């Protein structure tokens, strides 16, 4: 209850450092709140195809294909095997991805190049799905630093300089000793645009650091993404389950893939920096 953000400030597209929204609204009423697990009857659904495809300038290109399941079934999605998956670039080079594990397709040699537009084609179970994403120019992390706020709580600052005159979209994520502490949730993973910070030096800071210890190795990754990926992840927030009847209107995220596939296809750059907590 305490952590539920009533005003998802990410909706404004602003960097989170400036949007500390302590959830106080319900503090007053918290005393009389209670939670119970209940039985809810939900309808059965027709399975739909889910595609998650990425091209980066660091790791091999990968496409994962699966299907949705009914809400109260175990969350082990049936993999879609035997699909024909290709990715082509602006220069018409076509890469065919190889299925290495059931439902996971990889092009070992394909690394993205800044400025190139990539097209993904997936032919699965008789239907063709396509999506397009452009790899934006990389923005580097200028530096990382650590600091303590008034209450002596650790803050990890990440500095970057936004290129002026271009609409930039970012994803920033933090790893503590190699793992992301909050998963996809905003605690250690965030998407923002340069709507109010175009051309500025941005100080993005992580303050959800309660568990961090001295000598922890903190890695921060900065991804420059295109608007399609940004829209997908911004709207994904409305489908992350825990605000289905309170908060913003629930809905399916905006996919950039054709023919009704869920998920996204994105080409992005990754830059990272490391810091050891002192």
């Amino acid at each position, binding site marked *: 209850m305490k952590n539920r953000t009533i005003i998802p400030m990410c909706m404004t597209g602003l960097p989170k450092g400036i949007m500390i929204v302590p959830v106080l609204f319900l503090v007053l009423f918290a005393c009389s709140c209670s939670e119970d697990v209940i039985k809810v009857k939900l309808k059965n659904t027709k399975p739909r195809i889910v595609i998650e495809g990425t091209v980066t300038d660091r790791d091999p290109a990968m496409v994962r294909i699966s299907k949705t399941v009914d809400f109260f079934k175990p969350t082990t999605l049936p993999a879609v095997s035997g699909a024909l998956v290709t990715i082509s670039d602006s220069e018409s080079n076509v890469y065919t991805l190889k299925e290495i594990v059931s439902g996971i397709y990889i092009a070992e040699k394909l690394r993205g190049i800044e400025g190139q537009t990539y097209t993904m084609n997936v032919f699965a179970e008789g239907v063709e799905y396509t999506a397009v994403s452009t790899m934006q120019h990389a923005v580097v992390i200028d530096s990382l630093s650590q600091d303590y706020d008034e209450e002596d709580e650790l803050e990890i600052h990440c500095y970057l300089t936004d290129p002026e005159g271009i609409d930039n979209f970012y994803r920033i994520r933090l790893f503590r000793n190699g793992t992301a502490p909050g998963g996809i949730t905003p605690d250690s993973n965030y998407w923002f645009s340069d709507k109010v910070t175009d051309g500025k030096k941005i100080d993005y800071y992580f303050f959800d650091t309660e568990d961090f210890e001295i000598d922890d190795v903190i890695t921060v990754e900065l991804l420059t993404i295109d608007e399609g990926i940004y829209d997908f992840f911004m709207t994904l927030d409305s489908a992350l389950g*825990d605000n289905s009847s309170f908060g913003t209107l629930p809905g399916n995220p905006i996919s950039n893939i054709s023919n009704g596939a869920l998920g996204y296809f994105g080409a992005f750059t990754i830059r990272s920096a490391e810091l050891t907590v002192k």
Partner: protein
Amino acid sequence: MKMYLLLTALLFFPGITRAQSTFTVSGHIRDAATGEELVAASFYAVEVKKGGIANDYGFYSLTIPSGTYTMRYSYVGYKTKEVKLTVKKNIKLDVELSEETIVMEGIVVKGETEESTVTSTEMGTTQMNPKEAETMPILFGEQDIVKTFQLMPGVHEASEGNSGFFVRGGDADQNLVLLDEAPVYNPSHLMGFFSVFNSDALKDVKMIKGALPAEYGGRLSSVLDIKMKEGNSKNISASGGIGLIASRLTLEGPLAGGKGSFILSGRRTYADLLWKLSSKENLRRTQLYFYDLNMKANYLLGDNDHLFVSGYFGRDVLSERDQFGFNWGNITGTVRWNHLFNDRLFLNSSLILSTFDYQISAQSSGSMIDITSAIKDINLKEDFEYYIRSGHTMKFGFNVIRHRFLPGEFSASSTSEYNNLKLEEKHAYETAAYASHEYDVNDRLKVNYGLRCSMFTVLGPGTVFTYDEYGDVFDSRKYSRGKVIKNYWGPEPRLAANYMIDQSQSVKLSYSRNMQYIHLLSNFTSSTPLDIWHPSTSIIKPGTADQVSAGWFRNLAGNKYEMSVEAYYKDMKKLVDYKTGAEIILNEHVEAELVFGKGRAYGTEYFLKKKTGKFTGWLGYTLARTERKFPAIDNGKPFPARHDRTHDVAGVGTYVLNDKWTISASWVFHTGDAVTFPSGKYIIEDNTVSLYTERNGYRMPTYQRLDLGLTYTKKKTKRYESSWNFSLYNAYGRKNAFFIYFRDNEKHPEYTEAVKVTLFTFFPSVTYNFKY
């Protein structure tokens, strides 16, 4: 031009046949103890069975043939007064009625009015004096008149404990909430748990959910018309109360030797003051409070002129020291001038200011940043009432509102890290002219017909964007200052008829068309202060609603009981909804985030009220359906609106045990709201993502709740009175779902589970009230 012709025609048609031998009895009806004008008190000439109700300023006028009459004046809760009159010339007669508080053999007798809901043409209208709600059970010890209205058929609360409301299937922004004629854009405090209306300062509250009379307009569904007290013009008095979370104090008294009066009323919550004593650091650093200030003064300039000045100022503050601040509130101001041209023509002129704004500020690495948004209105109204002769009353007038929309501004104290961003201000004029005629066709049939013509003009400077199907900017065009960007207008006919079957029962029929030119943009499922009002544009078209309703009204047991059955059908067009994850805040292309569709609502409302005696109260039942249809949502398949409730029952009862103790109870039972739950799921980056297959395809569990109240009146003398109100909210501890969310099971993360959050079970509160 057409409008003027019509006005003229309407003006002269009924008035021409005034016989030589008729005279006018007119004046004001007031409260004997305080001098307050009694809104809608009734007057009646017994011999000729003619009468009516006093207007919003207590003014009445009746034109009758010469003769000797018994004039009967009455008002709910007041002693009826009869005056013998010989009418040979025009008579000006001010009447004072005294409150019926004398307990005869332990029975409180409340006055009855001649003019009741059975005889008027109004439908779907509830009028209430906040005093009537005084002894009802209340949440947090704060009396809230809006919550009392939520217990009426056809009116729903926005969510548990919330003062937001939906009327007959309309959306939240389709209610026109007026405080002394000034629109209140965000009528709630503390995320909706309280309304901004401090009952101590209120005189009369009226809700119209059916056909609106022609003098009202601008919203599709309802009007909640709230009038502040004028203040005691006879004695200085003070009253107040101490509740669980807030305190109130009201001062009122005469001005200029009784030629006027004033009232000052304030309220503030103090939960945060208690937190300061808390041992928790983060609580001590937190501020969360609201306050309200109501002020009003009036002055009689002469026999025919009366000046009123009133204002409201309220603010919510939520902050964490130095780090974060969020505050919002409404300001309204009204200057009114009543002028009597003669004993039959009454004019009220009003100049009204109304604003709502919010401000969020936050500390961000050395820079203070602010986000603000506001709507600011200036409004001029001229309302004439012409009492042509007995059985003919005309109302006509016009209204000009200048809207200024400030959709959003982002500013930072240091520009090294941020660029300031200011969305374009928008300017618009909303104008309307109206005329209506209430006409007693014969002894049985009474009609009220009227026409309102409204117009909305969006003016430059401004940029108009057009968007392609993906919501990307396709084209833009700049308009300079004063240039007309877009103009809309439309006729809004209104009709209401009442046919008396006999003395105690009637059938009524009404039709109205309403237009709405400003829209509230908020894609939250609960009420928040982050309201952004947006004018109609070439993309956002004005909303329209057509409503027909029919009803049967009946008085029972000599007007002790009143009952009604009403059926309505409402057709709404050009409603606004949102694309998934729509960005509403600080988005200059917000119009590209909207989708448009239509809706309809229909239902029947059953109502039984006991108005007098030791036991008073009502029972209401609504059977209704509310649907929406948007081409962009679920492929245009109709879906239930979130506030669609098939069954809705509410019962309220107050029983006076003796002159010290009063007990009360209210009970509600309704179908759960429609809600969007996921039907399937999938995984993105190892996180469970919900798959939604239809909008509002599920239902929240059935809701029911019993509240109990106990009022102990300590001393009741002429000079001093005090009382204690004890309330128990949700007395049988029903675990109603406030909301339901889904999460991965902690032990078996491959399974998802549904979690119900319950807000209040057994919530007691106590309030102490006093009056000098």
